[in-house]
């Protein structure tokens, strides 16, 4: 009986694909993956080791945790200081440093901060604690945002009044376009995020191909998916096939998930957003619509810390685009370390700067 997981981790097929890549002797190509989970998977399966120098694989700004700015963590910490507030969060955010502390450190000092597996679990915490205000730290791209929207819709339906989201949700399209139009960035193709695509469909990528001339592959997360996608993309780039191929067709439908999208648009609307280490990207974020303001923690709790200036000298933006390397950043390894990261590239353990700091590669 297939479980549709192990079949895509088949060792023989993976090694055959790895050999094809290792033996590539064609022109230099630069491809970018824009999903934090792709970065993790590529690391987990040692895929970089299989790539020849002629295939440059850049990790783009696709990790919603890493691009969460300092002030957001500071706001969450300030909320956790209130005696009647319970903070519910994905585990990913616990170690991200704010200005002076992190959620993990705050938890060790006795603040009520709980790791949940799903936003829906935080709604359950609200039901069980009617005398407390439960704030869920709402982050993520289009894969996760519909679930956060669902939790708000359910809260409204059930008349739950002690539940809110502190939003820092982001979207892919504007960020992708910023990367693509940058003349200094030489990008030949994209590995598109399979699970974001499961929600938004593939029309955006077809626009990237037809308007900007960049081909791409909608890619899953298992090692065979990633290896096959790289091989196909390199081949398409070299034969000038400016197309989008859906390599994750077992999950991704052309039109995406309309139910999920409609719930997301019902609760959220586009806004400008700050990406840690990069700065503001217009209309790249999502905020709660006015009609749901009773669930918007930014509205319910006034005087939360807002955007501070980005640290001068942080080269994350350039590094994420593959324009510069960590060594060229003046902050690297001085002010900016894994324990005290300034930008997104150092926050994630698989980020370009964090990896460079640890392993020198």
């Amino acid at each position, binding site marked *: 009986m297939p479980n549709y997981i192990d079949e895509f981790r*088949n060792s023989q097929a993976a090694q055959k694909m790895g050999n094809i890549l290792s033996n590539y002797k064609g022109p230099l190509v630069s491809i970018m993956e824009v999903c934090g989970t792709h970065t993790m998977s590529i690391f987990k399966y040692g895929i*970089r*080791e299989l790539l020849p120098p002629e295939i440059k694989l850049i990790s783009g700004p696709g990790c919603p945790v890493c691009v969460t700015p300092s002030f957001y963590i500071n706001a969450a910490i300030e909320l956790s200081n209130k005696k009647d507030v319970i903070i519910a969060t*994905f*585990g990913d955010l616990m170690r991200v440093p704010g200005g002076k502390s992190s959620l993990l450190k705050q938890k060790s000092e006795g603040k009520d901060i709980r790791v949940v*597996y799903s936003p829906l679990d935080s709604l359950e915490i609200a039901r069980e604690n009617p005398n407390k205000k439960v704030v869920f730290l709402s982050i993520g791209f289009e894969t996760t945002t519909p679930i956060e929207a669902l939790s708000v819709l359910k809260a409204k339906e059930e008349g739950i009044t002690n539940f809110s989201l502190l939003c820092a949700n982001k979207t892919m399209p504007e960020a992708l376009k910023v990367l693509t139009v940058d003349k200094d960035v030489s990008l030949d193709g994209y590995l598109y995020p399979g699970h974001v695509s499961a929600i938004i469909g593939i029309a955006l990528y077809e626009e990237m191909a037809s308007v900007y001339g960049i081909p791409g592959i909608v890619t899953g997360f298992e090692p065979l998916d990633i290896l096959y996608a790289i091989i196909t993309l390199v081949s398409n780039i070299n034969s000038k096939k400016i197309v989008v191929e859906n390599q994750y067709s077992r999950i991704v439908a052309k039109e995406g998930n309309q139910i999920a999208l409609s719930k997301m648009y019902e609760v959220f609307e586009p806004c400008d957003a700050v990406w840690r280490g990069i700065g503001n990207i217009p209309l790249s974020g999502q905020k709660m619509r006015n009609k749901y303001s009773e669930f918007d923690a930014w509205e319910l709790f006034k005087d939360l810390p807002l955007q501070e200036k980005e640290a001068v000298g942080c080269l994350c933006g350039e590094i994420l685009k593959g324009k510069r390397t960590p060594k060229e950043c003046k902050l690297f390894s001085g002010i900016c370390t894994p324990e005290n990261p300034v930008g997104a590239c150092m926050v994630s353990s698989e980020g370009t700067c964090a990896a460079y700091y640890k392993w020198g590669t």
Partner: protein
Amino acid sequence: MTDNKITLAYGSGGKLTHDLINNIFLKHFSNDVLLQGNDAAEFELPVGRIAFTTDSFVVSPIFFKGGDIGKLAVCGTVNDLAASGAKPLYLSCGFILEEGLPIEELERIAASMGETATKCGVKIVTGDTKVVQKGAADKIFINTAGIGIITEGIQISGSKAVPGDKVIITGNIGEHGCSILVEREKLNLVSKIESDCAPLNKVVEDVLEVTKEVHVLRDPTRGGLATTLNEIAAQSNVGIKLFEDKIPISDEVRGICELLGLDPLYMANEGKMIIICPEIAVAAIMKALKSNQLSKNSAVIGEVFEAPAKRVMIKTVTGGSRIVDMLVGDQLPRIC
């Protein structure tokens, strides 16, 4: 005793303390040395090198599928002695009890410890009990110390791994860590997962009977296989390479880790031993391991190299390798 909960009076040294000792600890740990009833236990040791270890146990929840904090304490100390190539003989145990702990739970734990000790062939010979006020401890903390005699001709140490050695694990990884996480965090997962908490002194005895050519023994508890191998790599100043497809792992552990974004290499084991030995000893050791129920899923999972020194790598299904670093803090479920 007529109370059903531990009160501060039970730690005061008076009648209640004595009742506790007699009705619970002496009842379940009963042996000739313990029954001497003096401030210190008196016994003779066989001639040889002595191994001596101590550990404290603070696990929550205190009862879990596959064991409890008491069984964990006895096994943990027995296994540390076994990992030195020693035959475990005597244990001490100190209890710190939180005011309000149900006495029935304490009795269950003591019974479990007595049963485990008997199974291992060790005697709990001395102990202590203190009671602290509510909130000053989490139900029950246990400290155990243990003494054993190291088998003649054995020189086992974390610093003795050499290039060319093979790395063996005595069974499926990650079971204790996963089962505790599921119960403690109330993750509402339906699974057959159970802690692998078990005493390994007999397993080690069987191995040392067929060969003295064992360089390193260690049980990969907190921090899992990855952390323990990193410790050994640093101590021995060698590199260790693992082969992902050789590591024994149950579907349950895989399922829990995949769902939550955790790495089984970092999940604790309480009934498994790492054995590092020269290649020539592998066949005999594997034969001995396979004939024991507790180590029937043993496998050769890696090799020791000269370089990269103090580093652990793993060759994945793709043929590409990644670095396996030491764990910093606990793993947390993730979505990214």
